C-alpha cells in the first residue's frame, strides 16, 4: 500500500491567470508555493497550447523541483488548479491525484455558486478573505486526503 498523499499546497488560478486562492499547508513556506503556483502557469500554458490538444482536464505532473512535484488540472472553464505534493520515491498514482483534483474542482464550483458573490468579483472573489467557505472546503479536502487513506 503506498503511503497516502499529502498536500503541501493548493493553488487556484483564474482563466486570466490571476490567483484565486493559494493555500499552503506548511507554515513558513508560502513564498515557495506562490512561486510554484506562478511558475506552473508556464508549464500549463505549454501543455494546453501544444500541438496535441487534448480535452483532458488533468494535465499530469507539471514538473518536479527538488522536493516538490507540481500537478496541474484545468477545468473546462479554464480555471487552473495546481497541487504541490512532496516528491517521494514511491509511485504517485494518477487516479488518486485526479480524484483530489476533482474534489478541489467541486469545492471551487460550490464556492463560486454563492449567490452573494458579486458578478464582477468572480472568479478571484471566491478566494477572497470575505468568503471563508472555500478555504474551509479546501482545508477539509487536504485533511481528508492526508489523514485517512483514500479508497481508490
Amino acid at each position, binding site marked *: 500500500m503506498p503511503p497516502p498523499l499529502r498536500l503541501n499546497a493548493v493553488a487556484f488560478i483564474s482563466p486570466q491567470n490571476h*490567483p484565486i486562492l493559494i493555500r499552503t499547508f506548511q507554515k513558513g513556506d508560502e513564498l515557495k508555493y506562490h512561486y510554484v503556483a506562478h511558475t506552473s502557469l508556464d508549464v500549463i500554458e505549454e501543455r494546453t497550447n501544444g500541438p496535441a490538444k487534448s480535452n483532458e482536464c488533468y494535465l499530469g505532473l507539471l514538473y518536479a*523541483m*527538488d522536493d516538490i512535484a507540481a500537478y496541474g488540472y484545468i477545468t473546462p472553464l479554464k480555471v487552473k488548479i495546481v497541487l504541490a505534493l512532496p*516528491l517521494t520515491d*514511491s509511485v504517485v498514482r494518477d487516479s488518486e491525484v485526479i480524484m483530489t483534483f476533482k474534489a478541489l474542482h467541486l469545492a471551487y464550483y460550490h464556492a463560486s455558486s454563492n449567490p452573494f458573490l458579486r458578478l464582477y468579483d468572480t472568479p478571484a472573489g471566491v478566494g477572497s478573505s470575505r468568503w471563508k467557505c472555500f478555504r474551509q472546503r479546501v482545508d477539509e479536502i487536504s485533511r481528508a486526503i492526508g489523514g485517512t487513506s483514500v479508497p481508490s
Partner: protein
Amino acid sequence: MSNQNVLVTYSGHASFLVSESWKQVLAALQSQLPLQSIHWKSASRPNVKTIQELDLTFLPLDSLRDEHTSQVPVTLLEKPLLNLYIVTCEDNDSYRTTVKKQIKDWHYTISQRKNQDWLILHVVRSDIKTADRKFFNMKSSVLDKIKADFNMDKRDRCVQLSWTAGDYSPVIWADLVNKIKDGLLFALNSSVSQREEEVRRSESQRHMPGWNFCTFFVLKESLASSFEGVKLFEDALQQYNELEVSFIQVLREKNMSWFGSLIQPAPLDDSMPLLSVSKKPYRDLILANSISVFDFRIYLLARQCVLLNKMRRPSEICQKVTSFLGTFGRRLREVEATLPEYFIESWIFSSALSVIDQCDTWVPSTELDGIQLARFSASKGELLELAKTQLDLLGVKVGHLPPKPPFANTLVEEIPTPHAEQPSKRSSTHRISKYEVILAIGDQEAFYDLYCATSNRAIDMYVKAGRRKFALKLHGFLAALDIHRGRLANALTIFTSLPAHYAPHMWTSLESFMLSRAINTHAELERPQDREWIHSLLSFLRTYANDTSKELISEEGDEKYVTHLINALHTAALSLDSDLIHSDHPIMAVQVSGDTTCSDDEDLAFVDATISNRLPCDVAVDEVSVTLRGRDSAGLKFTMKMDKIPPGQSTVTLSCPTSSWGLYALESSEVIMSHLRFQWQHKSTTTTTSKNNRISLVRVPRSLRALDVQIRQPQQTELGTTSRFLLVISTGQNVISRATIKATPPSGVQFNYSEAELEAEGTGTLEVADNAIVLLDAPADSDIVISLPHSDASRYHTMKIGLSVTYNTQSSLDVIRTLQTSRVITVSLPIAVNVEDFFRGKRLFSKFTISTTSHQYVRISSTELQGPPSLNGVKISGCRPTRPVITVTPEHPVNFLFSIESSNGPVVEPLNLVIKYRILRDEVEALIRQTVEDVLSSVSGEKPQYCSVRRALIDKLISHLESNAEWVETYRATGEIVLPDSFDDGGDFHGPIRQALAQCRPETASPCPWREIKIPVDVPRMNIVTAAQITIQPSDTQSDHLPPVYAGQPISATLILQTSFHWAEKEGKQSSYKMRYDVEERVKDWLLCGRKRGDFVATNGGSFAVPLTLIALHHGEITLPKVDVRPLPVSTQGSMGSMVPGADTSQAHGAEKVLILPRGGRTTYIVGMGDEN
C-alpha cells in the same frame, strides 16, 4: 553489447565459398542492406511493430563457435537468427550425387539449433542460363528438386538468385530479401516468445524463497537489449520501465536481501557522469548480487536514457533525470549520516550538469524543431534549477547563505538537529570529489560565482523555452543573493523591475513581496526618497490594500511597518518639487453620500462624503475634494481641508462656494497629500472596469437667495443694427465686490464684451475686458441689467448660451464663488412685416402687412413710420388706429397704411417702422403673476412661505392655461381669463384667484411691458410715374355736367397721360423717355375708336393727350377701360444691351364709372288682325 547486429550465417560447398564469385555475390547482397521496413506481427503483441531499418552481419557458419556457454542470459541476438546455404549446382545429376548430401548434412546441424531459421539460396548465372535449355529439358530443375527435398512445411525456404556480376538492381534481390526478412522474423518471433515465457515464469516466482531480483533483472534485460538490437527501442524502453516498476514494488516489500547496501560511496561517485553505463562494471555487480541500490538505479536510469536518446527524445531524458535526482536524493537523505559530507548536494549538482552536457552532445540543438527545442530547453532549465537548489542547500549549510527564505525552507530547518553533531561521527572517510563544489564550499566568492553562473544558465534555458515565470523566480533568487552579498544597488534594480511582471496577472502576493523587498533595500541603501521610491511605495500599498492573504510581507508588525511607510511617504511628498498625480489607488476611496444642502446666508453648497481608508493607520493628508459634473460639462468642486484620515470609514462634509444648482454626477475625487495627489475617476469610461459602473447622482438644490443670471431679449430691437441681449444679474443676498461673467455662445456667434454696457446707472460699475464682463461693487438684492452686443445669430431660432460666473462677495473676499449654468434665448422675431408701395404723384402710400411667424398671437400697441430728423420736406402721416391694441393672429395679418409726401424728389434716407408689440402669452403670464401677487398679499399676511407658494402657483396656473385654449377667445374679447375647470390648487387661493382672473379688464391692463422693434424701411424709387386718365367730354361744351349717355351713343373722350419723374433717382436721370400706351379693350362694355395704342415722349411734368371715342355697348354703370403704359427700352451708351426704365402707372379714373342709360325712342309694333274674308 547494444551495438550487436543481427547475425546471419552462410555455408556452402567449400570450394565455392572461397571462389571469387561468392565474394561478389556476398558484396552485392550486403549492398542491399540495411533491410527496410520489416513488419513484425507477433501473436503476443496486439500491434504490428515496424522495424524501419535493420543491419545484418554475415558470417561463415564455421566461424561461429559455441563460446557462450555461461548461464547468464544475454541478448538473443548473440546467436544467428538465420542460416544460409548457397548452392551453385545446375546439373541434376551432380545435385543428386553430391550436393544433396551436403545440404542434408548442413540442414541437420541447423535444425538442431533452437530458434534459428534457414534458407537455401540457389545462385544461377543468368548469362549462362538459356530458355530453350529449360524448355526441352523435361526433367525438373535443380531448384525444384531442392524444394521438393527440403521444404517440409508450408514455408518456402528455397530461393533462386539469377545473378550476373555487377548487377545491383534491387529487382533480382527482392525475392531473396523478402525471404531473409521472413526467416529473420520467424526466428525472432520464436526466440522472443520463448524468452518472454521465461521472464514471465521468473516473475511469477517472485514470492518464492530463493528468487533473486538480480537474476530476473538480467533475464529481462536480455530481452530489452534484444529489442534494442533489432531497433525496437520502444519495446526495449518498455522492458526497462517494467523493470523499474517491479523494482519499486520489490523495494516496497523490503525484500532486498540480494542487494548490497543502499549506497556504498565510492570516491568519485558524486562527480561521475550520471548517464554513463560503463563507468562501473554494472552488469558484473548485478550478477554478483553486490550492486548497491544507488548504482542499480543509476544503471537503470542510464539505460533508459540511452534508449530515449536513440528515440530522439532528449527532453524526456532531462525530465526523467530531474525527477530521479529529486526522488532518489530524498532517499539518500535517509542515510545522510553514512555519506561523505555534502555528498548528496554534490552528487545531484554534478549529475544534473553532466546530464545536460551529455544531452547536448547527444542531440545538438540544431537538430530539433521549435517546440521540441523549447521543451528540451525547459527541461534543461529544470535540471539547472535543480542544481541551483543544491547550491541553496549547500550555501545554507556552509553558511554562505542566510538560513531564511527564499534560500532555505522548512525542509532544511527540520534537519539541522541531527545535522549539528554529524561532522564528528561521519562514518565515511570519503570526501566529495566534485571540484567546483569543493571550491565553492571553501571559498565564498567562488560559491557566489558558481551560484550566479548556474542560475544564469537556468534563466537562459528558461528564456529559450519561453518560461518567463521560471526565469522571474530565479531573478528573484539572484536579487536575494545580491542583498545577502551587500550588492544592494543591484538588488534594488532587480526588485524594482520584477513587480511589473507580476502586476499584470494581479499576482499581488508576489508583487507585494518584491515591492517590500525593494522598499527595504532602498531604505538600507539610504537613497533619497524620490519619485521612483514613491511610485514603488504606492504600488506596494496598492498590493497591501488588495492582497487578502498578506502572507508574504514581513512577518512582524504589519501595522507598524505600514505606519512607518505612510509617515515616510508623507515626508517624501512634502519634499517633492512638483505635483505627482496618482490615479485610482485602492488604499483610500471617496464616495459621496446623499444630496447636497445649501447654506442659508451665503452662496455655499455642502455635500457629505464617506472616505474609507483601507490601511490600518492614520493617513496624513491636506485636502479632500470631490468634483461633480452636471449638464453642459459644468463642474463643481467640493473641498475640505483635513489633517488626517483615520483607518476605516469616516464621513466629512465638503463645501463648494457656488450658486449653481441642478442634477450632477460624481465625476472624480481627490485626496491631496502635499504634492501627492490621489485621484479617482468615478465616471465610467471605457478603460475602467465594470466595477465602477455605478454613477452616483447628486442633487444640488437651488438657493433662492443666491446669485442668478438670466438672459433676455432687449425690449427694443432694431433690425439692421448690432443685435444685443440683456444679462440680468440678480445679486440676491450677495454684495458683490467683483464678478466675472463669461458667456459661451453657440458656434458662429461672437460676443463683443468690450461694448457691453449697463442698462441702468448706479448699480455697480462695469470694467471693460476683452473676454468677459467684469462687474464691480453690485449691491445686494438688486437686478443689474447688462446689454451685450453679439454678432448675427439669425440662423438660430433659439440660442443656448453657457454662462459661467466667478465672483466674490463683500462679506468674504477671499472666497471665489462660481455659478455655472446655461440659458436659452429665442432669437427669431415673433412677427414678420411685408410692404407694398403705391405712387401717386408726389405722394407715396406704403402698406405694411404684419403677420406672426409662430402660432402665438401678437398684440400690437402702435406702429409708426419715423423719418430721421434730418429729413426735410417729407411729410409722413399714418392712419389713426381704431382700437388701442390690435391683435395679429396667425390667420389674420394686420395692415397699416402710411402716406409719404415728399416735396423735393425721392426720399434717400431710410425710414424706420417702429412697432410696439407683445406676445399674448407674455401678456397673460404677467397678468397672472400680478394677480397671484395681489391675491397672496391680500389673503395671507405671513411673508416667509410666500416665495415658494407664489412660484408654484404661477407655474401651475400657466400649465393649466397651456393645456386648454378655450379661454383665449373670451380673453381677446373681454379681457377675462376663465380658468379651465381642471384647475384646483387644493389650497386657499383657488377661489380668489379664479375670481380675480375672471374680471373684465381693458386690453392694456396687463403689466407686461411693450416690446419695440425698429425696422428700417427704404423708400422705393421710380423713374417714371405715369397717371393715365380718360376724361369724357360733355358734348355740350358749355355745361360742366355730363349729359345723359345712352347705350350705343358715341362719347368723345380724351386720354391724358401725365408723366412725372419726381421719384426718379437723381443719377442717370434722363430728360425724356419714350413710352407706349395701350388702352384695354373690353369688347363687352365698350366699343373703342381712335388711337387705341400709341407711342409718346414722356417728360417730367409733361402730359400727353389723345382723343378717343367710346361707345357703350349696354346700359348700366360701366367703369372706363384701363390704360396700360409701358416705357420703351432705352439703349444704354456703354453696351449694346438695352434697359427698360422703371415705371409705375396709376389709373386716375380707376374709381370712376359712367352711367349709361338705356337707349330711348319709339318702337312700332304691327299686329296682324286677321283676314276679313
